[in-house]
């Protein structure tokens, strides 16, 4: 390795172990004497549990125990919770139904756990789980969120009358209505944002052990935020006191949000480890992952955009019904509210916005944040409407957007957010140029000569990352603060450990974070280790989600580095008998400006620890910690241009080109950022073309394996054309905005706008399956013939 500072395309330090099979994931961990858990799950979407007979299972070889919800409740284990309070527009708090980790009375979705078997081997546990006889009395189920709100619909929770969790609003309704009254043109659309299954490569897993002598628990788990897991497990679930619980999230193989939450299975393993008296391991299989990992999206919306005679936007009015599934997952309430409706202004100067959001219980898997979390839903809604409005009024979609761009900053939107910086013309211009937008007509004609329908679509997205000042999110209902912490520990030999509360589940923190130190002290990145994912090692942390590890996590590191640097300079000044202000750090050395006097970083570190000659009153050591609380959200933005060719004979869409021009603020490692954008766009194309969690009317998940749930593959996507355009974020010391979710946020509307352009029919919903597209092509041909 080498000195690779900010801006270097440093190769990922962690890849050596990942690509040689040496990563250490939860399932790689063992504890002496461990047993294996297998869950007994409901085959019904809605049913009363009338009896559980474990006698046959208990008699099977290797079986230690069969535990049920009654025992869980008897041991005082608490319900799973949603940690973000939302109030309805009438002021009433959201209606949270009880969620038990093992359900003793009424199951509310297929796959919900009712019992757990612990046995010597995984096979024995599974065999025994099959032998647990559960009697159910089926109840009518409701799957569709709109149907769930109808009078007479099956009721899920007594706490939530009519299955309504909250009826929330944002913005000025009267002002918005007034804008529509004076509108010269109104564009109206119904928009469905399809339900997705996260599908991290590594399924969830847990290994829990209880030390009876110390009354201490250890939990290895697949978590994006091990400290939050520990806090929730102790403070709310009452499994173990915080100081007697160590949570370790080792290497984590993807999450996309789904590993933020504290699920029943992990909690049950922890509880069972004490109850059974042996460590307990559970590894989700792929079917369990489909049925129990929190799903994403699932919005039904009506949107209306009001324009004046000059095609400037006067107002935006939105009604959304969001399906939260059978239970309120940890952050589920915040996704369709503060992570969604606060972004409805997009990149545009919109004087009046009003959004009403109802969230609903249905007999489906719980829904929570999934890559983008609310922002993809907002972007899809707004950018489909913008493209449609442009077509309706006969303007180029690019120019219609440009006409309505925000150009002065800071800009206060009508929906809470105050955008701090941006240059939307720059990313639009760059994207149009890269896509050769002006040359599209010729490409369309050429495609037509081959019998293909070619279309082009835009999406100008904005999102909010680095969530957010703790006091601000607290006032909006968050149960936690959203700061981050860091500790920079310089060893006596001058190597450095950075302990961070961020936790990589694939983002490359070990590389990017090391580049910060390399930049600051001129040290080799190999001299830096990043320590994360262990509550016994790292002071505290809020974890990795919402594209926050750069803007928030690295800002905390910068604050700690500032303190280390100041102390190192004091020591160096003392040792070299110079003024502190004259000390400069360069190339791993502390130098006295204008002289040839210098000390290596190692010499200064050693001096700090020998403490033989420190300034009067200075404590020994060179180790500093910091907490960083953001001052605002950050606002990455950009323009995506998608070009497709549709085969009218089969309805198959080929994405032939995809251009992304992003503004992520300053960038530490462009290669890693490009990787994030590639992955995000691919997920977005997946949502637009391929992915859909589909239930039948009885609540059976039809797409519960890769035979039916279609993940994007390499041959489904083109080679992407990327560029970045920097406006620095004024809110944090590195000027960074975040890049982890942008691709997934910005891309779906670009794809659908391109297909609807190609086929000349706007009535297309995601995913744009070949059959749907074919049917619209057929309808178009019939129309043309008439």
């Amino acid at each position, binding site marked *: 390795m080498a000195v690779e500072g900010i801006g270097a395309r440093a190769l990922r330090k962690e890849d050596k172990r990942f690509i040689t099979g040496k990563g250490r994931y939860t399932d790689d961990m063992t504890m002496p004497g461990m047993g294996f858990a297998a869950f007994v799950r409901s085959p019904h979407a809605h049913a009363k549990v009338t009896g559980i007979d474990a006698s046959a299972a208990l008699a099977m070889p290797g079986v230690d125990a069969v535990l049920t919800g009654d025992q869980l409740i008897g041991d005082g284990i608490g319900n799973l919770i949603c940690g973000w309070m939302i109030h309805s527009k009438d002021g009433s708090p959201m209606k949270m139904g009880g969620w038990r980790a093992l359900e003793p009375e009424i199951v509310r979705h297929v796959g919900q756990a009712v019992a757990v078997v612990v046995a010597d081997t995984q096979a024995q546990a599974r065999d025994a789980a099959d032998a647990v006889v559960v009697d159910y009395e089926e109840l009518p189920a409701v799957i569709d969120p709109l149907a769930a709100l109808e009078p007479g619909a099956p009721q899920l929770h007594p706490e939530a009358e009519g299955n309504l969790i909250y009826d929330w609003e944002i913005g000025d309704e009267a002002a918005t209505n007034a804008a529509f009254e004076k509108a010269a043109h109104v564009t109206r659309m119904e928009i469905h944002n399809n339900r997705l299954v996260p599908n991290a490569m590594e399924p969830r897993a847990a290994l829990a052990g209880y030390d009876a002598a110390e009354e201490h628990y250890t939990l290895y788990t697949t978590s994006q935020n091990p400290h939050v897991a520990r806090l929730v497990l102790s403070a709310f679930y009452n499994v173990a006191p915080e100081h007697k619980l160590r949570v370790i999230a080792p290497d984590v193989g993807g999450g996309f949000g789904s590993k933020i939450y504290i699920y029943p299975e992990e909690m049950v393993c922890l509880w069972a480890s004490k109850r059974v008296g042996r460590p307990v391991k559970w590894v989700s299989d792929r*079917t369990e992952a489909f049925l129990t990992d929190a799903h994403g999206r699932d919005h039904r919306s009506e949107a209306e955009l009001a324009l004046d005679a000059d095609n400037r936007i006067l107002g935006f009015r939105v009604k959304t019904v969001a399906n939260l599934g059978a239970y309120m997952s940890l952050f589920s309430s915040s996704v369709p509210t503060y992570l969604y409706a606060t972004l409805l202004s997009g990149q545009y100067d919109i004087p009046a916005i009003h959004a009403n959001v109802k969230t609903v219980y249905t007999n489906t898997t719980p829904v929570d944040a999934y890559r983008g979390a609310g922002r993809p839903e907002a972007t899809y809604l707004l950018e489909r409407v913008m493209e449609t409005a442009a077509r309706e009024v006969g303007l180029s979609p690019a120019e219609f957007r440009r006409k309505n761009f925000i150009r002065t900053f800071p800009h206060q939107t009508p929906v809470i957010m105050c955008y701090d910086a941006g240059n939307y013309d720059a990313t639009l211009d760059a994207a149009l140029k890269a896509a050769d937008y002006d040359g599209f007509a010729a490409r369309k004609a050429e495609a037509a000569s081959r019998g293909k329908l070619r279309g082009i679509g835009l999406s100008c997205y904005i999102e909010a990352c680095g969530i957010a000042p703790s006091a601000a999110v607290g006032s909006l209902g968050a149960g936690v603060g959203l700061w981050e912490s860091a500790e920079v520990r310089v060893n006596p030999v001058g190597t450095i450990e950075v302990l961070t509360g961020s936790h990589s589940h694939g983002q490359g923190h070990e590389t990017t974070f090391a580049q910060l130190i390399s930049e600051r002290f001129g040290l080799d990145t190999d001299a830096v280790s990043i320590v994360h994912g262990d509550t016994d090692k790292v002071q505290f942390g809020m974890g990795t989600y919402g594209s926050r590890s750069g803007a928030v996590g690295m800002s905390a590191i910068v604050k700690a580095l500032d303190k280390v640097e100041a102390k190192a300079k004091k020591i160096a000044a003392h040792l070299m008998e110079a003024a502190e202000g004259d000390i400069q750090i360069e190339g791993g050395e502390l130098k006295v400006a204008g002289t040839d006097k210098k000390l290596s970083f190692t010499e200064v570190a050693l001096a700090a620890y020998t403490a033989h000659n420190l300034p009067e009153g200075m404590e020994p050591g060179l180790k500093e910690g910091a907490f960083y609380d953001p001052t605002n959200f950050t606002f990455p933005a950009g323009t995506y241009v998608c070009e497709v060719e549709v085969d009218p*004979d*089969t309805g198959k869409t080929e994405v032939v080109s995809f251009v992304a021009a992003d503004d992520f603020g300053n960038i530490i490692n462009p290669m890693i950022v490009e990787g994030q954008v590639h992955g995000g766009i691919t997920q977005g194309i997946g949502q637009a*073309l*391929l992915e859909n969690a589909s239930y039948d009317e009885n609540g059976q998940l039809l797409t519960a394996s*890769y*035979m*039916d749930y279609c993940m994007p593959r390499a041959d489904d996507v083109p080679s992407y054309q990327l560029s970045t355009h920097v406006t620095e974020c004024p809110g944090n010391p590195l000027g960074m905005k975040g890049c982890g979710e942008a691709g997934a946020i910005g891309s779906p509307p670009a794809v659908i706008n391109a297909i609807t352009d190609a086929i000349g029919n706007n009535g297309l919903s995601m995913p744009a399956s070949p*059959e749907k597209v*074919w049917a619209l092509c057929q309808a178009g041909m019939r129309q043309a013939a008439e």
Partner: protein
Amino acid sequence: MYETNYHRAGSVAEAAEKMAGADDGKFLGGGQTLLPTMKQRLAAPSDLIDVTKIAEMKGICADGDGVSIGAATTHAEVAGSDLVKQTLPGLASLAGGIGDPAVRHMGTIGGSIANNDPAADYPAALVALGATVITSKRELAAEDFFTGMFETALEDDEVVVSVKFPGAAASAYAKYPNPASRYAMAGVFVAKGKDGGVKVAVTGAGQDGVFRMSAMETALAGNFSPDAVAGIAPNADDLLSDLHGSAAYRANLVTVMAKRAIAAAG
């Protein structure tokens, strides 16, 4: 996966003997369907009798003007065979488009046809080319071998030994894959015999598995061109309908794939 007993048979006779001795045995080819099914605990054979190491069931050789392919021959071997490519290019291209490289290097022709998945590719080739299935007990015409969805004429203790394909003047296969599983939603194999007769067989779309499109065959007999079948589609009432495609959509795909196969066959 439930517990099972694994046996490796050295000869066709030994395979039959092991099967006779098993409680609820299954012959194991490349295992590309059976093993995932077992892993999902949806199948629990007491015994697996692996037939892929039986010498007489392996390899590809010329047989008259056609080719004979051992049942334990992998899709990759068929796709890569110069003999198959020269004799029956449609068959080689079909084999090269099954699943993904891992599947093609494990899955076998015998395993595929014995399973008779309605969305598998091989049945269309066997029927359109008029192949003969040689089993441990008898010889069966392909159309008599495939009897319905996941159903064949095979008896429980009968194993496919090889498949004999006659030569053809032209052959080609076109399929529209299910976006998720990449199995055929409609796969059409078109074969023009050396006698000039045309056969068209469809997989992936039919409720009873592979079927012939006689209306297309008649049309093509006089005019072997894509246009000849442009207006011909199967009756949607007889077709599969699922999450990925309605019967009407599949009917359309059969026509489109037939046109593409004919164009490829030249």
